[in-house]
């Protein structure tokens, strides 16, 4: 007079097995569909149409497209792709559905503008995106900053960058660096200090963790470049003074040129090579550096760095 045990056990077993099996099939499906899924984005790439289709839930749909954009870029970045042609439509749809989603403009400035493999290599579209953002959010200084950032980093158009920073600096609550950068851009555009200020601003104002991690990586790279330049200059001085290359940092210390063993931003000591060059011990951990690389070094595909 109780529920049948056979039925309970069988149905229970079927339930559990099918649950697990369906999850496995889903993973397989997901892998199969990555390409198609994103191509479907292009079928309806007009934000206006999507807005109508979303039946008023455009904010939610914007969030969904934003997630897709981040995942798309992260996924491709991970495999070292050189083609991110869907990033621009995804960001445009996102901001078309929700023009106030500032994180999307920030992402565009940092990952749409730079050349592959770091970015999609579309600085003009990134600029259009930023200008669209400014039109819709005239009181958000971050958008002027994004615009200026792109002009500086990718186009090396210092006057335009300066004017964007100047406009941004007018907005209450803007990062104090904007005003400084605007003022000094004309004279010191190419300076290390300017680049550092920019990345610090990005780091401090970023809403997206990937952007923030990217900024940290760039700041470290700038530091390494500066360190290596400086150290190699000291080596040259030593060479000039003594007629031979130093064999270790101790020699430089003995000569009064150096106070302590120099360490890179990750806390590891730089290596002094026999030919007088300075190298970083772990170049894989320091993306974007332009100096201190071992000869013949090939950088691995860049990947999204975890947030610190």
């Amino acid at each position, binding site marked *: *007079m*109780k529920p*049948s045990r056979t039925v309970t056990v069988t149905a229970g077993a079927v339930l559990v097995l099918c649950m697990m099996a369906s999850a496995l099939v889903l993973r397989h499906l997901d892998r199969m569909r990555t390409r198609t899924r994103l191509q479907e984005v292009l079928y309806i790439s007009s934000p206006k149409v999507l807005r109508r289709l979303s039946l008023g839930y455009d904010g939610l749909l914007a969030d969904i497209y934003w997630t897709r954009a981040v995942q798309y870029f992260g996924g491709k970045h991970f495999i070292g792709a050189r083609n991110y042609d869907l990033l621009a439509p995804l960001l445009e749809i996102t901001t078309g559905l929700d023009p106030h989603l500032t994180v999307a403009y920030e992402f565009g400035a940092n990952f749409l503008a730079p050349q592959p493999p770091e970015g999609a290599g579309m600085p003009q579209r990134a600029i259009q995106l930023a200008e669209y953002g400014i039109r819709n959010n005239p009181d958000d200084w971050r958008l002027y900053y994004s615009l200026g950032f792109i002009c500086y980093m990718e186009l090396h158009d210092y006057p335009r960058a300066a004017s964007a920073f100047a406009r941004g600096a007018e907005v209450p609550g803007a990062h104090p660096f904007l005003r400084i950068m605007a003022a000094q851009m004309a004279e010191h555009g190419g300076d290390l200090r300017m680049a550092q200020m920019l990345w610090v601003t990005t780091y401090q104002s970023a809403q997206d963790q990937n952007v923030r991690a990217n900024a940290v990586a760039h700041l470290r790279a700038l530091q390494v470049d500066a360190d290596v330049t400086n150290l190699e200059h000291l080596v040259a001085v030593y060479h000039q003074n003594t007629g031979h290359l130093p064999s270790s940092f101790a020699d430089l210390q003995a000569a009064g040129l150096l106070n302590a063993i120099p360490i890179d931003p990750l806390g590891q000591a730089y290596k002094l090579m026999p030919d007088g060059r300075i190298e970083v011990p772990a170049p894989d951990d320091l993306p974007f550096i332009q100096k201190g690389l071992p000869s013949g070094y090939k950088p691995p595909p860049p990947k999204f760095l975890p947030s610190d």
Partner: protein
Amino acid sequence: MAAIEIIGLSKTYNVGFWRKRLKCALRSLDLTIAQGEIFGFLGPNGAGKTTTLKLLMGLVFPSSGMARILGMEINDPRMKARIGFLPEQPYFYDYLTATELLEYYAQLSGVAAGDRRRRVSKVLEQVGLPDAAKVQLRKFSKGMLQRVGIAQAILHDPEVLFFDEPMSGLDPIGRRQVRDLMEELKRQGKTIFFSTHILSDAESLCDRVAIIHLGELRGVGAVEDLTSSVEGRVEIVWLGNSVPASVRTIVTECHASGDTMRAVLPETQQDAMIDALRREHLRIVSITPVRTSLEEYFVRKLKPSEAAAGVRS
């Protein structure tokens, strides 16, 4: 092998959403019903009759105890093929006609495909609905639905039948027909277990009855045993208009109607009474044992107030 065995069967419900209160619908029922019996399950409304039937049909699971029908478990399909069930105030798929419904039930009961049509029309005749075969059930009256209910219960020629209030909704003619049908089924050797709160039906039909109240069994036994329990009285009717002096003391009640006298006296005094009447040369019309009616037995088994609420003749 007993037709129905009920051992310690009980059912308690958890009532209420937040604070669960316990409601005991059936307390530890023990009953055995032999094959070929008509067994009446009596009680006022809410006594636990329908709960018992639902437990026996496997619609509800017991809190404790068990039951067997024809020696088999309650959810054994082989057993179910040999029983028929008529629920209280039955509902059927109202978008089907009577024939369609019965043929569907015949399919589910495993009646052979060639046999179905014949059985269905036969059973419709038996319950008096041959003309309504093609009518949609949503157009049926309450009485007609009740008959369809009986039809679907006997359709597959089961050995044991379970009826919950089989007479409900029927006019006197209908009730008579059902009574006749039940007697016919009994003649065929079937076992019938039915619940009712109409005592006169139970009295005339049943071999044995059980009385249940507030979930508890209050009495079981053959109808005659229950009714002629302690009383043992007879009623004697004779032509005349007086009671012989010698027996006046033993007569408990008497009254005259027309040219006859009617007296009630203890059974033990029956012979003395007959002798007295014959001595007086009075013509005896009839001698009838007096039974406590089942109603009185019923009432006695319940508290007066509750009996008044549930009793109907």
